[in-house]
């Protein structure tokens, strides 16, 4: 029997207990929202897509089988939604044209600034660096981007990332290594351009 408490909640929801679904929603809404936000970098799209993930859970409850950890299952849904909706679906245009200076972005930078403020120049440099890293992340190929996000923010093992992305442990290791080199290269190229 699968002893993952979230799997147990999902099974309770499957047998009709609506409050179990509410608990799962509360447990995963912020992590999922952040994962999707870091992937697409658009606050509104991230909110809509994270809700879409839960709606997918709701719709497929009758066919749910507790084969894996619940987190693995729900993140797999999330990665599929991101890949389908953002890369090819209705959000493609919005994401490609999203501006970095959206309201949420500015608010977030302000939060970072007030927390780590060490002087005007330092603040500006740091702000600029954050902006560059995010821009670089956005340029990573989909799988590299997702794998890197799972590795950095959730500190998952290669094996678990593999389960979420549907690839082998070895493949994940190589994807993450490549992601770190790619992001460094994008970063350096930008830096060199600015120096000139």
């Amino acid at each position: 029997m699968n002893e993952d408490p979230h799997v147990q909640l999902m099974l309770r929801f499957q047998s009709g207990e609506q409050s179990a679904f509410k608990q799962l929603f509360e447990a995963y809404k912020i992590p999922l929202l952040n994962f999707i936000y870091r992937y697409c970098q658009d606050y509104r799209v991230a909110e809509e897509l994270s809700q879409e993930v839960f709606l997918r859970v709701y719709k497929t409850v009758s066919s749910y089988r507790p084969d894996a950890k619940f987190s693995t299952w729900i993140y797999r849904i999330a990665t599929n939604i991101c890949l389908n909706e953002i890369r090819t679906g209705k959000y493609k245009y919005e994401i490609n044209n999203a501006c970095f200076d959206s309201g949420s972005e500015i608010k977030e930078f302000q939060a970072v600034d007030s927390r780590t403020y060490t002087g005007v120049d330092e603040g500006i440099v740091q702000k600029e660096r954050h902006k560059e890293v995010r821009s670089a992340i956005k340029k990573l190929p989909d799988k590299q981007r997702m794998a890197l996000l799972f590795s950095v923010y959730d500190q998952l093992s290669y094996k678990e990332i593999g389960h979420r992305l549907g690839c082998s442990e070895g493949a994940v290791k190589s994807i993450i290594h490549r992601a770190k080199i790619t992001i460094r290269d994008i970063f350096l190229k930008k830096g060199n351009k600015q120096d000139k």
Partner: protein
Amino acid sequence: MNRECKKHRKNLVAYMDRELPRKRLIQIDEHLQGCALCQKELEELRMPVAALLEWESIVPSAGYDRVFWEKVEGLKAGQKNRKEKSFSKQFRLCFKPKFALVTSAALAALIFLITFFELKPLNNEPSQSEILFVQDFDLLYNLEIIENREALENFEVINFLDILEQEVNG
């Protein structure tokens, strides 16, 4: 870049993530101490990852939960509608010309069954007529086969089995 640098650079990401055998880690440590170029290379790899960690988490907007539960309600209503639509679609399908024969046959069979078998009340309580006049249940249990129920029904009180048998056998 000399040969030593080339050899270690391809392992710098694995070194950064401490994913190499101990012996290799020590070799790279030693090389880094004397090589400013490889140190810079390592720093360039580390910096974007470190900057990623400074990326603060966001929280959902004020209306996030409300909008979501409204979507759930919409989904529930949609599911209910679909079920009803699917039932009425199947019902209408029964009256389409190509299924008319099957539907008529099914209806005829149903009417036949209703007319030939008396409809029993839904509860399993025996009706007064079913109780008959059998007061001595021991007696009833002793009869293996009651072939002529009418004969049984004619008895108001069954006192002795042999009387019953005589009546049944004429």
